[in-house]
């Protein structure tokens, strides 16, 4: 395999570069996916029928916790990639591990949030608003869940094979994915929760 040594590890192979470009294009598609969900959400948010409005059900505490957890995890995965570039395998694995734990905690709070909504009578089937709210949040949550497994597999592979162009490439792509989920969350936080609470 030809290696281009002027580039960081994850870009060294031809296939590695293809993977990264392909993944960026995939993220473009993901942007469209979430944009469609957001557009639908904005249209349906006022249509609460006889159910509760956003202002009535949103609570700032769990949402803030979720935000802090996810933002921190984006930071730690950045540190992980940095460690990877320095060739420090253990540090990289630790940071990826912390990232996943934070992600897991995020997911825990989100599940709590969902059960809370259902308990106070804002379940999936109540109104157009609750339906699209849970679908939008759920799509993001499903992405996080998938990310947890994916990240775990990558840690295991780095552990097994070390930092090779291949594992580094996978880890880097995973970090792009994770940052992207964070960006989506910022939108959710600002335009679903904050705007909804106002």
């Amino acid at each position, binding site marked *: 395999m030809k290696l281009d040594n002027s580039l960081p590890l994850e870009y060294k192979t031809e296939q590695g*570069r293809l993977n990264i470009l392909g993944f960026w294009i995939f993220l473009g598609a993901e942007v469209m996916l979430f944009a469609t969900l957001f557009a639908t959400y904005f249209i349906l948010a006022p249509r609460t*029928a006889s159910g509760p409005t956003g202002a009535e059900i949103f609570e700032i505490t769990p949402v803030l916790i979720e935000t802090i957890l996810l933002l921190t995890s984006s930071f730690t995965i950045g540190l992980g990639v940095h460690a990877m570039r320095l060739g420090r395998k253990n540090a990289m694995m630790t940071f990826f591990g912390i990232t996943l734990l934070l992600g897991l905690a995020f997911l825990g709070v989100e599940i709590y949030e969902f059960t809370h909504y259902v308990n106070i009578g804002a379940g999936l089937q109540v109104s157009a608003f609750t339906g699209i709210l849970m679908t939008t949040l759920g799509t993001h949550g499903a992405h996080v869940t998938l990310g947890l497994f994916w990240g775990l597999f990558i840690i295991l592979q780095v552990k097994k094979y070390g930092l090779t162009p291949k594992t580094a490439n996978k880890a880097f792509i995973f970090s792009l994915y994770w940052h992207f989920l964070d960006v989506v969350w910022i939108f959710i936080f600002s335009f679903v929760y904050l705007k909804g609470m106002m």
Partner: protein
Amino acid sequence: MTYFDRFAIPHPSPAIYASMVAIGLTVIAILFGLTYFKKWGYLWREWLTTVDHKRIGIMYLIAALLMLFRGGVDAIMLRAQTAVPDNTLLDAQHYNEVFTTHGVVMIIFMAMPFIYALMNFIVPLQIGARDVAFPRLNALSFWLFFMGAMLFNISFVVGGSPDAGWTSYFPLAGNDFSTSVGTNYYLLSIQIAGIGTLISGINFMTTIFKMRVPSMTLMKMPMFTWTALITNAIVVFAFPVLTVVLLLGTMDRLFGTHIFTMTNGGMDMLWANLFWVWGHPEVYILILPAFGIYSEIVSTFSRRNLYGYKSMVASIVIISFLSFLVWAHHFFTMGQGALANSIFSITTMAIAIPTGIKIFNWLLTMRKGRIEFTVPMLYTIGFIPIFTIGGVTGVMLGMASADYQYHNTMFLVAHFHYTIIPGVVFAMLAGLTYWWPKMFGYMLSEKIGKWAFWFIAIGFNVTFFPMFFTGLDGQARRMYTYSEATGYGPLNLLSFAGAIVLMAGVAILVYNIYYSTRYAPRNIGSDPWNARTLEWATQSPVQSYNFARTPHVESTEAFWDHKKKGKPLFKGKIEKIHMPNNSGMPFIMSSIFFVWGFSFVFSMWIPAIITTIAIFACMAHRSFEKDDGYYIPVEEIEATEKDSEVLTDETR
């Protein structure tokens, strides 16, 4: 027993029972044949597990032709039912199901795979690449599409077909008005196929951006590759919208949300909007590759380079952009107000400008050219006037105030068939005939091909031209019958006669494939049309590794330059070539997707959960798999190249 009731067909008829028997017998025959001729191993090794873009292209092609047959049978049933007033061949429900499956099959399961068949086969060759960027994902795309298509196609014998039109508008498609599982089939099968298409979009964009031979700058790409690039860009941006809209529809139907319902705050028009935000770009996904194919053919058979290459590129880029801004023209009459209607009216008509530029470029390419009336060229020349009628009537429909007269009439049906049939079907048949020798190493008979062309072209016009008149006269679309007093009878009968001729044309085409496979000469060389672009610089049929040495490109017509101006095409010496390994995973994973979709259609949650986990297990398996492909050694390449007549610089 109540559990099994769900699989019953809501409106059974003898025809459906007959189809069940026919499907059963065909499956048994295939299984028996494979076993008897001991072909299982061959099928698995060479096809089901292949990651070669050329073989995947051929599989897309076979699937597309099968679906053309299925959609064609539906079409004949529709025209037969409306051939005479007050006909009772099909009842209203059955007619609803048939026009729905006709539309879906033709657009999603015929036109799309046809396009991807040609893109798969040709694009990597035109850019001098070894394969696509992600060969295994490419196989996954195909199998997801295929399993989606199969899921859709079993609907009419298990549980009932969708019946709310290919646009599946809510609330009609919601639980209240569509009580069978038909619409579930629609939502899930298109979802599965759509994910496959999205993956293809990413794959081809990456391929075209990154895998061109180093000397091929963007503005030296052949026209078909350009259209493929832009088409896939539209796919990447439009298909996620479809993913979401299908997801939301599924939520409504299976999980009781109120997104598109009439009650609890739901908004039915949201479906129409979201659907067409994907749907209109989709029609350009269908038409742009066709433009690319015609561009290749026009310049090859006029023996001239393409007129106005740059304006061609510019116009496809503009078309792709505008295609996202016109969606509301599909429901001018649904009350979104004069301002919105006016804006969408203007954007709609604006698309006619870049499209017109392309038409003039083709005409100017032919001017002063030495035109050869081969079969691909006949389709191209036929396309121009027919498509222009489609475009002009499109502009008529695009005038919002006038659309109140045309909307939902046969006039609309005539319009979009006048764009889609010359735009997609003619182009695909032209492309198929043109590239057939590259794919299979022999040519289709020109003589039989011309017969097929004339039957298809005349049959098409006889079928659809009368609809402009009945439509203006007020005949509504999607109505299963009409009374004698309306006076629509004679023109509809004429239309039915045209459909028969069209069908006969397709039969001649199939016969041509059979005849040529048996009798066509095989020693035709690798460049039978005297063509211009890189794909013709390979052997026919193409070697698994495509090019032994990286070609060198100086213009959009590298191969022509090489032949006429003696520009060297292949420099350097042969090196070992890296190739991807075959894999059964795409096929297995897609099969699980089939069961997954089926479980959702019938709300069978336990298999749905199991298959969901299984799908993720497949992805995990892929993540841990160690597979670096293999190398073809230099000696082997030299051996295969030696007895080929591929042009080497030494021999020219």
